């Protein structure tokens, strides 16, 4: 048996409400709230980035895994906001948790699915017996251009998973990936903000890839929607994951435990992985969970896990994802948010 032996989340405590952003740009807040099902989003403090959140989420995963960090043989950080253009995030993370030097490390990028890419890789390495444990992190401090629709959703958060063969809390049943070439969202070198294809990001991009991956995955595993207790789909806004779930034949109750986006925003590489951590927080032994990510460009990674008895003792060993989301929040005005996110031009 191989699968998840520890998982951890991290969400910064700052929030900004949709109304506060809409006020500045003269936009209609109710239409964003209703149309995209977004209420507020997380904002990193000025001293937080993809690396710092990856470290916090990974330490929470270590608390649940109860393993020696020196036994981790691979550390992969998936993000589209790595702090350096050249110099890995993964080395800082591996050093901070005490996994160096006997470890393989790489940074991954694939828009919003870079986090599940790492999970895909470590599951394969562990299954093959190449490493004892692998750590996969999805983290982002994403930026939307001021006034752009993305500014209402681009948020910050991280989720980490430690994969191994012993003391598994969620067994891997099946994995599957679905990939095509698709120019729906991109950011060129030296450009600060990403560009997107507007409505083109919906039907042929998000929906086609998630539906393709979910159907392919369920067929490969010989599983029907009714066999699954919970499902998590990438959450660029509130509406898309509910709609794609409906198309695939899932009920809202299967989706809502991992549906964090209305209060969190889109945490990009952390989005569906954070949904998985929130779902594991409330799951019972025997539950079947499916997660399907989506990364523009474009592709979807799908996984089906079966929760084991170990979830009962493991889940309380670190803070729950909903506690990060709902407790100890600090609401920002747009001016402070703009300062925190480096959107204000200062003297050199």
């Amino acid at each position: 048996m191989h699968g998840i032996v520890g998982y951890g989340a991290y969400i910064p405590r700052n929030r900004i409400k949709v109304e506060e952003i809409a006020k500045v740009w003269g936009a209609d807040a109710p239409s964003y709230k209703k149309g995209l099902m977004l209420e507020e989003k997380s904002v990193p403090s000025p001293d937080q980035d993809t690396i710092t959140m990856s470290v916090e989420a990974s330490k929470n995963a270590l608390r649940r895994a109860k393993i020696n960090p020196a036994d981790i043989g691979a550390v992969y950080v998936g993000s589209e906001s790595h702090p350096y253009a050249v110099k890995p995030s993964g080395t800082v993370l591996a050093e901070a948790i005490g996994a160096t030097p006997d470890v393989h490390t790489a940074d991954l990028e694939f828009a919003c699915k870079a986090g599940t890419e790492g999970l895909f890789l470590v599951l394969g390495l562990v299954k093959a017996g190449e490493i004892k444990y692998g750590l996969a992190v999805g983290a982002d401090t994403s930026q939307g251009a001021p006034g752009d629709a993305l500014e209402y959703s681009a948020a910050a958060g991280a989720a980490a998973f430690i994969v191994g063969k012993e003391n598994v809390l969620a067994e891997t049943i099946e994995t599957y990936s679905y990939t095509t070439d698709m120019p729906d969202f991109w950011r060129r070198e030296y450009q600060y903000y990403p560009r997107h294809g507007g409505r083109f990001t919906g039907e042929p991009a998000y929906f086609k890839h998630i539906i393709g991956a979910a159907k392919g995955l369920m067929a490969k595993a010989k599983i029907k929607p009714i066999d699954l207790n919970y499902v998590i789909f990438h959450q660029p806004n509130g509406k898309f994951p509910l709609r794609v779930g409906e198309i695939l034949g899932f009920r809202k109750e299967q989706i809502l435990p991992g549906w964090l986006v209305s209060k969190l925003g889109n945490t990009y590489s952390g989005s569906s992985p954070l949904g998985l951590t929130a779902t594991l927080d409330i799951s019972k032994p025997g539950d079947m969970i499916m997660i399907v990510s989506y990364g523009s460009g474009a592709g979807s990674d799908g996984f089906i896990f079966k929760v084991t008895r170990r979830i009962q003792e493991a889940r309380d060993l670190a803070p729950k994802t909903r506690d990060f989301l709902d407790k100890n929040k600090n609401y920002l005005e747009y001016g402070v948010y703009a300062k925190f996110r480096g959107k204000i031009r200062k003297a050199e």
Partner: protein
Amino acid sequence: MPTPSRAWREFPQRYRLEAGKCKKCGAVSFPPRLVCPVCGWREFTKTKLAENGKVLTYTIIRVPPHQFADQAPYAVAIVELSDGVKVTGQVVDCDFDKIKIGLRVKFEFRKMYSEGEAGVIYYGYKFVPA
């Protein structure tokens, strides 16, 4: 501003609170030292400090060293960790009127400062309310 090489030597203590424990008398030094300040011994084992503690005293820095200019005003505290070791660090994500002597705090990994837009980014421990 420290050079990358000096900062690099401090990664174990700044990233994961690694201290030196005297092999002769057991005294814990943080940051690690070459000579035990208690007994003068020169051999140490590595030990990791606790990540929870309480504020012993604190101050608000309003005129900071230049590499911290963007962060001012900020709070710096002496924190007594639950293993009894006292360390100095920033207390962040906490309004100044909430910081009190005795406040329970915990370790969080944060950016310390960076050498402008093009230089190295330095990471390390800060404290947040527990």
